[in-house]
C-alpha cells in the first residue's frame, strides 16, 4: 500500500478530479505495475478463485462421470431395451423403465396443463392490471410458495388434498368427463391426478416469476402504441405484451417442466408408487424420481442398483436438456435480442 502516491502533494486535498491535467508522463518513477508487492499474492488469489470457478464445472462433470460409471452394468445388460421394457421385477433381475418414464411425463404434463394458465394469469395480473401498491406483496406471496419444502407439500397433500380429491373432485370428474377414459376407476384420491395437482402448485411460482420478468422487459412504448390505436387493455396485453414475450414465457414454462420432472418427495407421497401404465389419471403410477427415493437405499444386488442409477442418469439428461433450452429461450428475450427468430 505504501508507495509514491502518498508523497505527491498535489493528490492530498479534497479536489480529486480537478487534477487530471497533471501529467504523470513527465514524472520519473519506477513502474508500479511490474514491481508491485501484490504480484505474487495476486497470482495465488487469481488461481484460487479460478479454481472455485472450475469447481462448478468439475462438479457437473463428476455427476456425469459417476452416473455413467455406476449405471454401466445395467446399460450392458439391457441396452436400449431398458427404456422400452415395462417389467420391473427386482427378484428376477428384469428391469424396464417405461412405467417410470410414463409416470414422470404424465404427471408433469398434468401439472403443466394446470399451472401454465394460472401462472401466466398471475404474472399478467401483477405486471399489467393490479394497483402498483399490490405488486410487491403479491409477487412476494406467490414466491413464498417456492420456499415451502417439498416434503411439506407432500404432507399437506396426503392429509388435505387427497381426501378432497377422493371425496369431491374425483366423483365429479368421473361423472362429467368419465367418457374420455381419463377419469375412470375407483376414486382413491392417491394417484396421477393428485401428483399432477401438487406439482402444479409447486411450479406456479417458477413459471410466474420468469413470465413476470419477461413481461417487464417489454418496452413501455409498445403498450402505449397499442393503446393509442384504440385497443382495450386486454387487447393491448394480448397483442402488445404477450405476443412479444412469447419466447420468454415458453422458456419459463420449460423451466417449470424441468422442476416438475425432477420433483421427488411430494410426488412420491401421493402418486401411489405402482409401476403400471394406466390411461386413467385416477390410477396409481410411479415416477423416475420416486422409484429412486423408494428403492435406492434398499436395492440389493449390483444390477438392481445399476438399473436405478441408469434411471437417475436418464432423469439427469432429460432435465439438463430441458433446463438448457429454457435458459436459452429466457436469455434471448431478456438480453434484448429479437425473440421471434427463436420462437
Amino acid at each position, binding site marked *: *500500500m505504501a508507495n509514491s502516491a502518498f508523497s505527491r502533494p498535489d493528490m492530498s486535498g479534497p479536489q480529486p478530479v480537478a487534477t487530471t491535467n497533471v501529467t504523470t508522463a513527465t514524472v520519473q518513477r519506477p513502474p508500479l505495475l511490474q514491481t508491485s508487492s501484490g504480484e505474487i499474492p495476486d497470482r*495465488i488469489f487469481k488461481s484460487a*478463485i479460478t479454481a472455485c470457478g472450475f*469447481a462448478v464445472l468439475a462438479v457437473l462433470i463428476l455427476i456425469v462421470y459417476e452416473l455413467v460409471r455406476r449405471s454401466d452394468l445395467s446399460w450392458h445388460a439391457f441396452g436400449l431395451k431398458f427404456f422400452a421394457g415395462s417389467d420391473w421385477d427386482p427378484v428376477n433381475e428384469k428391469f424396464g423403465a417405461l412405467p417410470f418414464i410414463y409416470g414422470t411425463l404424465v404427471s408433469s404434463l398434468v401439472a403443466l396443463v394446470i399451472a401454465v394458465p394460472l401462472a401466466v394469469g398471475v404474472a399478467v395480473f401483477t405486471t399489467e*392490471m393490479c394497483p402498483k401498491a399490490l405488486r410487491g406483496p403479491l409477487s412476494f406471496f406467490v414466491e413464498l410458495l417456492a420456499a415451502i419444502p417439498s416434503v411439506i407439500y407432500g404432507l399437506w397433500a396426503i392429509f388435505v388434498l387427497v381426501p378432497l380429491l377422493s371425496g369431491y373432485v374425483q366423483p365429479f370428474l368421473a361423472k362429467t368427463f368419465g367418457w374420455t377414459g381419463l377419469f375412470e376407476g375407483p376414486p382413491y384420491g392417491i394417484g396421477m391426478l393428485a401428483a399432477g395437482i401438487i406439482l402444479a402448485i409447486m411450479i406456479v411460482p417458477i413459471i410466474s416469476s420468469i413470465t413476470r420478468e419477461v413481461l417487464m422487459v417489454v418496452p413501455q412504448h409498445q403498450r402505449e402504441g397499442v393503446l393509442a390505436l384504440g385497443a382495450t387493455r386486454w387487447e393491448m396485453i394480448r397483442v402488445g405484451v404477450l405476443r412479444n414475450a412469447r419466447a420468454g414465457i415458453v422458456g419459463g414454462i420449460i423451466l417449470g417442466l424441468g422442476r416438475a420432472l425432477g420433483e421427488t418427495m411430494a410426488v412420491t*407421497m401421493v402418486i401411489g408408487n405402482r409401476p403400471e401404465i394406466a390411461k386413467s389419471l385416477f390410477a396409481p403410477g410411479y415416477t423416475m424420481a420416486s422409484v429412486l427415493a423408494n428403492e435406492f437405499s434398499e436395492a440389493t444386488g449390483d444390477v438392481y442398483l445399476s438399473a436405478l442409477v441408469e434411471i437417475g442418469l436418464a432423469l439427469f439428461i432429460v*432435465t439438463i436438456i430441458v433446463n438448457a433450452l429454457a435458459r436459452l429461450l429466457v436469455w434471448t428475450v431478456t438480453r434484448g435480442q429479437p425473440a421471434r427468430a427463436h420462437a
Partner: protein
Amino acid sequence: MPESSVSNGKASVPPISLRRRATDHIMTGAATLTVVLVLAPLIAIFGYLVYRGIGSINWAFLTQLPKPVGETGGGMANAIVGSIFILAIASIIGVPFGIGAGIYLAEFGRNRFGGFIRFTADVLNGVPSIVIGIVAYSIVVLYQKHFSALAGGVALAIMMVPTICRTTEEMLLLVPQALREAAYGLGVPRWRTTLSIVLRTATSGVITGIMLAFARVAGETAPLLFTAFGNQFWNLRYDQPTAALPLQIFVYAISPYDEWHRLAWAGALVLIILIVTSVAAVRYVVRRGSFGAA
C-alpha cells in the same frame, strides 16, 4: 375499426364494441381469479400447518428422542439437531466454493469461459436433487462404507453452490467500478481490492444469497434419503447416519400411525419456522449492520 373519422374539427373516437369490452372485463376477471386460485393453496398450507402443528409443539417435542410405535409423546430433538449439523457441514463446504466461484464470474469471468461457467452453474441449479443424492452416495457413502452426515452435507453443499455463486456474482457487479479503480489507484493489490473493498461492500447481498441457498436446502429430503439416511438416536459424528427433520417428517407422514402423523405436522411447522426465521434474522442483522449496500 377502419373508419376512424375526423370530422369538422372534432376528433370523434368510434365507440368500442360491446363484445370487445366484455372480453376485456372477462379477461381481467380471469386474471384476478388465477391470483385467488394460486394464493388459496398457500393460505391453506400455512393455515393447516399451524392448525395441526401448534398443539403438538411442546417442550417434550423439542427435547426428547422419538418414542417407539404405540407410545405417545416423544419428540424430534435429534432430528432438529441433526438437521442443523448437516446444514453446518453443507455450509462449510458449499459457501466458500460458492462465493469463490461468484467472485471468479464477476471479476475474471467477463469472457467466453466465464459465460460457460455461468451456464454450467445454471444447469447445475436445475439438476434434480435426488440425482445429486445418488452422486453423493457414490462418492462418499460407498467409500465410507456406511451412510453418514458428511454424505448428506456434501449433497446439500452441491446444491448450495450454484445459488450462492450466481447471487454473489450479481451483487459484486453492482459494486461501482470506480471503487475498484480508486483502490487500484492507491496501489492496493487486486486480491486485497476484491476481498476487502468489493466483497466487503457487497456483504449484505452476498449473505442474502447464502440465506437463499440455505433456505432452499434446509427443507430438502430427497438427497438425504440415502446419504444421511436418518437415525432414531442422537448422533453428532460426521461419519455416522444422522437424523434430519425433513427425513423424519417424510417417514412419519407415510406411516399408518396417528401419533406419528401428529409429530409429522409438528415437525413440519418447526421446519418452516426454522427456515423463515433464519432468513428473517439474517436479513435483519444485515440491514442493521454497518455494511450498507445493494
